[in-house]
């Protein structure tokens, strides 16, 4: 123990510093109760809710594709494959136009460990954990999420900010996986315009 520390201990420097802070905060609240900068430490929780930070892992949702209004999910099953607690179930079938249709997308929320691996695994940014965390209930039923419920979750808890969430929070974001414009789509004939290289050539060999 150095000399300096012994002096500090004897003179109660640290305690005085702490009391000074308390006093400062106390005075601030007393003098200017309507200040913008007020630092309330205690939250009156059920009435006042703490906003969740970006990337908070709460209740699940399926992303709604703004263009079609349907779920973005194509049923690739990577989320179900990566899920450590095996709580995602996906059932697909062939649609009338020979496209892949996700009939059912179900999550057993009670088994989920909120690792968000599913969000990371998804190549389309189609599944997300919303900031919503208040969903206690009395039966198991409400915790079995169907596709419809998950889409509703998106509307209720994510909506517009959800798209921002994928763009700014996740890295690599979904945008990073985007192909270039000439990339084939699975189905349907694109206009056969001459597509010259749209993206700059990285050149060279990376090996």
């Amino acid at each position, binding site marked *: 123990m150095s000399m300096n520390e012994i002096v500090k201990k004897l003179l109660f420097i640290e305690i005085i510093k702490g009391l000074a802070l308390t006093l400062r905060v106390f005075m601030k609240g007393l003098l200017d109760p309507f200040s913008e900068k007020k630092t309330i430490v205690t939250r009156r929780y059920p009435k006042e809710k703490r906003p969740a930070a970006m990337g908070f892992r709460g209740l699940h949702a399926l992303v709604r594709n703004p263009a079609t209004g349907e779920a973005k999910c194509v049923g690739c099953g990577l989320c179900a494959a990566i899920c450590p607690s095996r709580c995602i179930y996906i059932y697909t079938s062939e649609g009338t136009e020979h496209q892949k249709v996700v009939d059912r997308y179900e999550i057993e929320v009670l088994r989920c460990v909120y690792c968000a691996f599913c969000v990371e695994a998804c190549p389309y940014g189609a599944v997300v954990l919303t900031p919503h965390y208040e969903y206690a209930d009395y039966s198991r039923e409400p915790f079995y999420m169907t596709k419809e419920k998950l889409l509703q979750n998106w509307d209720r808890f994510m909506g517009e900010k959800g798209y921002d969430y994928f763009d700014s929070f996740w890295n690599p974001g979904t945008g990073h996986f985007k192909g270039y414009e000439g990339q084939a789509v699975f189905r349907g004939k694109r206009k056969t315009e001459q597509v*010259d*290289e749209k993206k*700059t*050539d990285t*050149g*060279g*060999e990376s090996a």
Partner: protein
Amino acid sequence: MDKFLLRGIEEEGSAAIASYREKGGYAALEKALSMKPEEIIEEVKRSGLRGRGGAGFPTGMKWDFASRDPKFPKYLICNADEGEPGTFKDRPILEKNPHLLIEGMIISGHALKAEYGYIYLRGEYPGAKVVLEQAIEEAYKEGLLGDDILGKGIKFHLSVHQGAGAYICGEETALIDSIEGRRGQPRIKPPFPVNVGAWGMPTIVNNVETLSNLPLIVSIGGEKYAGIGNPECPGPKIYSVSCCVKKPGVYELPMGTTLREIIYTHAGGIRDDRPLKAVIPGGISTPVLTPDQIDCKMDFVNLPKVGSMLGSGAVMVFDDTVCLVRVCWRALRFFEHESCGKCVPCREGTGWLRNILERIENGFGRKGDIELLQDVAHSMAGKTFCPLGDGAANVVLSFIRQFHDEFEHHIEKKECMA
């Protein structure tokens, strides 16, 4: 030197049998039929004749392999599918001197104990088909073909099979597939066609020019033949000269004539007396040469020393008005179109080389494109199923090696040097 392969082709009606006989035709056949098959093969070996199709494989050796195979029947196929840009050396023989080929094939058939011969004719030579069929008919009439040739008890039948316009069918195994009625795609070698060829039987595939040399070898003897031209690969050779020369055309010269002699003496020099820029010595798939290399002798031995190949002997001469990037691009367009699609590097690689060259030529080239071209070409060379892919890669590699500046100029200045 006297012309042999193209003797008298300028005359009207040179394709008729009477005209051929006037020139001493079918004399060699009579001599050959009195010889034993082994003797003819021995004579061919002694002559040092090498295949004129492009690879330059010693014909005698090939025949030896085939004749040692105990399986019968054997087939003799004449490869008349000359489809390579710049090559038109077989055409005068097929159209003007067909009996020389027929005589050569009968002699070969006798030597190899093959009883059936096919001429696999290029699909784009409809004229030659008429001529050949007529010539074969004449030969049948005169008893030169059939079950008992000239009363010697030797059997040989010959027919023309016209291809459907695929360059790849000039590759011998693809050619055999095509004759069998399949899709023309090269087969896995080994087994080689000399052991397992058409319908699983020993099959000898020789070029038109190779077979046309046979009457000469038989009539003057192998040793005398070996004295013509370069002793390492002797004989007369037809060079087809095209592009920027004053007198493009076919020239029968002894093997080993220098490139300079061919261009300046026989073909009359460069058009408008402009400076020479580049020469492709043996058809589009052979590496390009620069003006300082044209003193090279044109044969199977000397050209590889300067990094090229004799190929089919199709000399393509380019003067300074020619954009070599464009030449390279046109060559690749050909290879892309003719790739059979069997193996991945060739099917996809030729397309990519063409694509990149196209953008360089059109002024959209980027930095690094030359390296990319080289990289793709290296990944193709030696890794494709058949030589077509090698050829395509070699064109690109040699053009870049010899004319790197021109490519760079194209990319940087977005314009042509020429």
